[in-house]
């Protein structure tokens, strides 16, 4: 899948800039897909997640206590936004510093482990892969962040093989 990182303006503010993944063959991001796909079944949970993202973007930033970063065997910087334990909606993201968040896709956790769920594994793998590619590009000086820490700069086109 080839994709570009795009800024989601309606979530971004003084707390953090929120980006998502826009596949080349689509005009909606993985985050949009996640919202559209699950809203009817998990209305309240999706609204809570939207409010959480918005508050992170507008106010509190990507604080480590709020974001479950690196837990459950996730790659460095990759986190999940989760809702109530009994619902267990998972939305995967990648945090870069406290001012930049890239949100991917997700879904409901219905299996005991993420590895047993091909859908969630897929979205988790996208973020792990992105995290690795960003590290490589930073090393090659092909990717960076604006001075104020809120804008991604450089080549924002990626491919998940």
């Amino acid at each position: 899948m080839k994709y570009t990182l795009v800024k989601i303006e309606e979530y971004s503010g003084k707390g953090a800039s929120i980006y998502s993944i826009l596949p080349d063959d689509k005009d909606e991001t993985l985050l949009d897909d996640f919202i559209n796909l699950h809203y009817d079944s998990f209305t309240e949970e999706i609204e809570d997640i939207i409010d959480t993202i918005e508050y992170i973007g507008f106010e509190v930033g990507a604080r480590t206590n709020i974001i479950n970063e690196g837990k459950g065997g996730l790659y460095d910087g990759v986190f999940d936004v989760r809702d109530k334990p009994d619902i267990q909606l998972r939305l995967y993201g990648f945090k870069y510093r406290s001012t930049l968040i890239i949100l991917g896709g997700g879904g409901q956790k219905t299996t005991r482990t993420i590895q047993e769920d091909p859908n969630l594994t897929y979205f988790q793998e996208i973020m792990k892969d992105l995290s690795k590619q960003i590290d490589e590009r930073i090393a090659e000086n092909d990717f960076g962040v604006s001075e104020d820490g809120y804008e991604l700069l450089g080549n924002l086109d990626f491919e998940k093989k």
Partner: protein
Amino acid sequence: MTPPMKKERKENLLLKKIRENRDPIKKKNVQFRIDTACALDDLMQSKGISPSDLAKKLGKYPSEISKWLSGNQNFTQEVLLDIAHALDFELEIPFRKRADDKQELNLRIHFEVTINVEKPNEKFIPTPVTGRACQENHQMCKESGVSYSTGN
């Protein structure tokens, strides 16, 4: 390094609708949960207390403390008081007037709550509470300020 070329994302109409119709009280509840978690996290960090330390003090599992810090917890007053006590602090819940209260004139009582955790004095600090009920022609809902104290 130059800013990247912008690729267009189609506006998400569902998201727009959700944001426009969101219940402000529910939204405030999410924000309040996050603010409470961040206040607790700040306090623990300032005192050098880890989630495991707090878990031991409260007889909880560390995973529960992590959940509290994640902003997903609807705290009860009892739990907040237990936390404050375990950290040798006291809990204060002031009610504040809404910043935009001119826009709200109906029978519902609107309030904002912030939680400040303050160092204890010798006695339990009286908790100042001010409330606002908004209905101009309703006697019970006139603007009021209330305060109470609890001896300890």
